[in-house]
């Protein structure tokens, strides 16, 4: 497995099982793939073999959704061991997780849940990131979540909290521009101000995805990953890349998954954006 991180940074695509054959065959330049390691935490089977075959041709990113870094508990030993085994086997160019929690007192809630960003929480989460990095033997990127609740009791705004985590642990940031857009809309702040506060040198990857409206009838935007990337999110992306320069950028799609070429068209748009001479 010799694929290294593409330089200059290029655009990738979330790998879906229904697209394995096309993902293996495509000749797209600079293409890389990202998967949720949780979907590959198995002893064996064709899913792992497909990933191995695709990894032999393409760089890979492992983007975790289940480590629960923001839980008030150590990262689950078995989960971390399974993540380490996948990282060792597939040699990803990046491993990332979320600034969120999902496991609580042994029960897993498959979502990325919010918390008050207190000093106490900062200590705990920095410790959890440090433990994760120690086990993996590498630094990770931490992604900003999409938020739906106007919680009080924060000691930090989210950008400052993330920056403090990078200072304390050496981790980098995965900036999900759609999450910034959704959270800013839901909680009533300016997405541009949030993005401008993130230091360029900490940002190692960017995510782009689609969102939808709340079918429950509220005014909330929902980070569904079930639609194309919105034009307003493309505009924020362009603004971010102009400021910080090109970064590996992923098109994420996890629901209502269209044909491979449809997703590749979105990926190619991000790819073209990264290759603009003004950013290089």
């Amino acid at each position, binding site marked *: 497995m010799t694929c290294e991180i593409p330089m200059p940074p290029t655009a990738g695509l979330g790998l879906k099982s229904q697209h394995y054959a096309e993902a293996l065959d495509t000749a797209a330049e600079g293409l890389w793939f990202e998967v949720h390691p*949780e*979907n590959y*935490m*198995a*002893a*064996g*089977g*064709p*899913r792992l*073999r497909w990933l191995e075959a695709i990894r032999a041709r393409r760089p890979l990113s492992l983007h975790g*959704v*289940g*480590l*629960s870094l*923001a*839980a*008030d508990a150590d990262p*689950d030993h*078995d*989960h971390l061991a*399974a993540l380490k085994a996948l990282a060792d086997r597939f040699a990803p160019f990046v491993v990332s997780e979320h600034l969120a*929690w*999902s*496991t*609580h*007192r*042994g*029960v*897993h*809630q*498959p*979502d990325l*849940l*919010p*918390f*008050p960003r*207190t000093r*106490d*929480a900062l200590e*705990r989460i920095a410790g959890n990131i440090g433990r994760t990095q120690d086990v993996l033997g590498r630094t990770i990127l931490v992604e900003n979540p999409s*938020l*739906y*609740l*106007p*919680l*009080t*009791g924060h000691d930090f705004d989210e950008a400052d909290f993330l920056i403090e985590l990078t200072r304390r642990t050496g981790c980098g940031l995965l900036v999900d521009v759609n999450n910034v857009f959704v959270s800013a809309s*839901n909680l009533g702040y300016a997405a541009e101000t949030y993005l401008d506060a993130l230091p360029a040198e900490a940002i190692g990857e960017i995510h782009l995805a689609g969102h939808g409206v*709340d079918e*429950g*009838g*509220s*005014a*909330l935007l*929902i980070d569904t990953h079930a639609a194309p990337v919105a034009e307003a999110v493309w505009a924020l992306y362009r603004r971010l890349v102009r400021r910080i320069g090109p970064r590996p950028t992923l098109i994420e799609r996890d629901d209502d998954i269209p044909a491979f070429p449809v997703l590749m068209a979105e990926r190619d748009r991000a790819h073209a954006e990264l290759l603009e001479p003004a950013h290089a």
Partner: protein
Amino acid sequence: MPELQAFQDAFVSALAERTAAPIAAWLPEGEAEPAGLSVYRNTIAKGCVDALAANFPTMASLVGEDWFRAAAALFARQRPPHSAALLAYGEDFADWLARFPPAADLPYLPAMARLDRLWTTALFAPEAEPLAAEAFALEPEVLAGARPTLHPSLAFAGFDSGLPGLWLAARQPDPGEMALSPEPQAILIVRPADTVHSCVLDAAGLAFLTAVRDDATLGEAITAAAQADPHADLASLFAALIADGAFSGLDLGDNP
């Protein structure tokens, strides 16, 4: 208790009790029941139900999407996952269905879930190279004394009726009219390479694999199969199991 822990206890209560009251201390005034809590609740439920739909596709196809999603959501609330690796979620779904009152009119349903579970488990089982027929080309007395190892993906189970046949029929693209045979039937599921293979196993096959699982020699297993069905074609049974990739090792004991 640290505040993070207190918040997470309260948040989990708010999800379960379907009210924001437990997290009121962390909400601004005038936000007694924010819509966002339902968003998290719905996303969690969808994550669990989608995972169960992926892991129990035959059972889901038999009851239809609405029934399945309603039942799966209730199961997820009563038996939430304990691991983020949801490909293994639903270990006790079949047992839960057997005690789920709305499923009382569908007595075949827990077996369909159990068979789906066997299939999904085989899909993600450890890899092993299946033994080819050549590995069994031995002197008759050496072969009779050898103990085969079942492939790590192999599962088999006996049923009081034709539930395995019903399950196999329901997995066809266009199942049409399906009937449940009253005769006892067994299932064999194995994934020697990339594809999960499943077929009905007869009484001789069930007795043979049960004996092998219980560490019998091939001679003992063949005897058990002949006792289960004196008319069985044991040579064909053994050849079919080898062709299915049912064995991954053969311990020759003192006869290497």
